[in-house]
């Protein structure tokens, strides 16, 4: 007999998401990730000063605003013809701002969003909200080791805060920084700022190396079966990101399930709409050409998330995709980090395609980014410029592709009469949490859930652990009601 499990809301993610799973003989047969993507941001941006997109699109997400600041700045630079003129200082400072927020976001994700699925906070803190109510029955770390993880939950609150304080040296404030602007950055890299940044960074690097990574290993040792749970589509996509004067820190590429690399080309991205509440006439188009036309009463649809696909294929984005991309492209640092961790855990590369693989990739990526930031600081030149003059063109087109903590993000813009004519944003969660596409292929999270054994349907730990390992970033899931008041689906407003 089949049972339907609905988890709504899925908490401890950015925003709201609903997950539905049909379980037959204890195994998930069907899954629906009913997240959303429609606050109307793209519609609100139409007709505005193109430079304002850089401030406004950050407000898509308060957890990763700097990714949108970066993507929109690259997009505007492109449309304004500035891409080749951005100074080395500006590139480095933009990367330091983005890197600082990668660190805060990854630390926040592991300790404050994901850890409560593995760590027994109640035994250390007591029966206290917001640590109750919760799922019961599968907390495997006990005694001192558990108490230590709970202590680190509290300490990590300070460390992630300090990441944002570090970011503010060049970014002005967080969330919603002001330092990254079209043409460069507003702050100058004076020696005192560089040193101030460095010592804040050193404290965070110490935490990542000596607390965060060991904690992920401790959890992995207690929950070893999660190296096999939640494998997903195994096709990994990265646009590449962190545009340094020496090239990109994260390489772009598409890695197939047998770890073969294919070069990434932007024109292979299309967005399917069959199961999304948008007009079918726009389905299958490139984001550089499509329009956002909501159709909330469309039959078959169950999400306001579109279904981005690469050559029509489902892809997973995020730290796992980036680390594996750099790994197969023989990045020595990444290879060293990944091989050393897998060795400690006695897992093979195939173990990365899992719940624990995603947590491990995120932790290692934190170290990779944090250590690289030291080099970027040293490359800054206090006397050299950080911004170039710019003017809004009469007409123009731009694309800004980069990496956010949760995966690749892209902004596309068209300018007409010096105003925004069209703006499109494709977020990493649109890929990961997408509904089925025009060929009825389930999205990445849906695929990771399908086939999972659920031990206790009243406490379906497996499902929430899989979903949270992707670190989904939604704002608020929105549910459509049909005329009779019964559910016709779920969508959300970005």
């Amino acid at each position, binding site marked *: 007999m089949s049972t339907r499990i*609905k*988890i*709504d*809301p899925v*908490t*401890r*993610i*950015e925003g*709201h998401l609903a997950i539905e799973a049909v379980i037959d003989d204890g195994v998930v047969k069907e899954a629906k990730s009913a997240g959303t993507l*429609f*606050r*109307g941001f793209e*519609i*609100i941006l139409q007709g505005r*000063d193109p*430079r*304002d997109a850089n401030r*406004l699109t950050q*407000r*898509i997400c*308060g*957890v990763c*605003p700097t990714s949108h600041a970066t993507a929109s700045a690259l997009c505007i630079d492109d449309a304004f013809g500035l891409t080749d003129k951005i100074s080395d200082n500006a590139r480095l400072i933009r990367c330091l701002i983005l890197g600082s927020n990668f660190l805060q976001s990854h630390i926040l994700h592991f300790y*404050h969003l994901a850890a409560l699925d593995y760590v027994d*906070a109640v035994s250390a803190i007591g029966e*206290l*909200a*917001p*640590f109750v*109510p*919760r*799922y019961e029955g599968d907390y495997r770390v006990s005694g001192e080791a558990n108490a230590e993880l709970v202590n680190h939950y*509290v300490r990590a*609150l300070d460390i*992630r*805060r300090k990441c*944002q304080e570090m*970011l*503010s*040296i*060049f970014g*002005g*404030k*967080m*969330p*919603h920084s*002001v*330092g990254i602007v079209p043409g460069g950055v*507003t702050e100058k890299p004076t020696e005192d700022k560089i040193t101030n940044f460095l010592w804040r960074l050193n404290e965070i690097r110490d935490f990542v190396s000596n607390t965060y990574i060991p904690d992920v290993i401790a959890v992995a040792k207690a929950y070893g079966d999660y190296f096999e749970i939640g494998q997903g589509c195994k096709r990994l996509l990265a646009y590449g990101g962190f545009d340094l004067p020496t090239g990109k820190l994260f390489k772009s590429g598409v890695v197939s399930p047998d770890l073969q690399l294919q070069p990434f080309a932007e024109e292979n991205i299309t967005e399917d709409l069959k199961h999304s509440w948008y007009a079918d006439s726009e389905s299958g188009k490139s984001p550089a050409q499509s329009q956002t036309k909501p159709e*909330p009463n469309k039959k078959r649809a169950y999400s306001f998330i579109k279904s981005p696909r690469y050559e029509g294929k489902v892809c997973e984005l995020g730290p796992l995709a980036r680390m594996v991309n750099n790994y197969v492209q023989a990045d020595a640092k990444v290879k060293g980090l990944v091989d050393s961790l897998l060795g400690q855990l006695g897992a093979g590369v195939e173990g990365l395609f899992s719940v624990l693989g995603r947590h491990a990739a995120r932790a290692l990526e934190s170290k990779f980014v944090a250590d690289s930031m030291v080099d970027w600081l040293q490359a800054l030149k206090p006397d050299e410029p950080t*911004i170039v*003059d710019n003017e809004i063109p009469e007409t123009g087109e731009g694309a800004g592709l980069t990496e956010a903590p949760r995966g690749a993000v892209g902004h596309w813009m068209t300018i007409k009469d010096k105003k925004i004519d069209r703006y499109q944003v494709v977020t990493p969660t649109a890929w990961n949490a997408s509904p089925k596409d025009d060929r009825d292929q389930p999205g990445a999270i849906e695929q990771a859930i399908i086939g999972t054994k659920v031990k206790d349907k009243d406490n379906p730990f497996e499902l929430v652990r899989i979903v949270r390992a992707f670190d989904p970033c939604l*704002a*608020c899931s*929105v*549910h459509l*009601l049909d005329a009779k008041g019964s*559910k016709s689906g*779920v969508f959300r*407003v970005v």
Partner: protein
Amino acid sequence: MKGRKVATKEYPVIWLQGAGCTGCSVSILNAVSPRIQNLLLDEVVPGHRLNLLFHATIMAGQGEPVIEVLKDTKKNRKGGYILVVEGAIATAESGAYGSIGEIDGKHVTVQQSVEELGKNALLAIALGTCSADGGIPAAQPNPTLCKGVKAVFDEKGIETPVVNVPGCPPHPEWFTGTISVILFSGAEALDLENLGRPKLFYGQLIHENCPRRADFDKGKFAKKLGEPGCLYQLGCKGHYTYADCPLRQWNNGVSWCVKAGSPCLGCVEPEFPDGTSPIYEKITFEDLK
């Protein structure tokens, strides 16, 4: 601090998220004194503590059991809890554009939750500009008919007092400071200005306390971003924005918008963002009238 031993007074808190970005929550996570762990676990002021019953980004539970918490609070803690709302309230299609979860197979909209929980709350804190005034989701053409808490309460005749703590996002101390007044002296002690914001934080113009004020007085204006001088010609909205950013600064005093060379966006004002943009163009006080 030593004092007479009395029973701890507890203030249950329900924190709802509507059409927003979670940036207000992230900003509160950046609080320094008290820190977020103090807000969650300790007596924030001696003898008084918060009890955060519901917050979707940090609570352990999920699914129907956490929606039960809302039902239980509304019924059994009438008049005794603080409602914090982050994000705007989408009111188009009877609130169908914003839901916080599902119970008994039915969706619970943000609008319905704000109204029902608002009715029985001790007071509501509209945290952030979206919640106070609609903010970016309510910007033209306002596709989902977003509104702030006070506007929704007024339409439904809900008389629960609303404290507006705007900002995109708000400074963490504007929130912890508001909580401190409530815990120390009672909600009635909050001294609010005409837009419902505590005068303690929103009493003076950015322009009055700006470190670049001397440049303005001397007529020394920056012509390009990154230059020294007053940012008025580059679109700074500090001359009609009421907030204490220049004095308090952001992120543990590290910096703030103008210090980093960026014009003030006017993000605490009800006109944000339509009345405060283009962001990098000069808008005079007269333009607003």
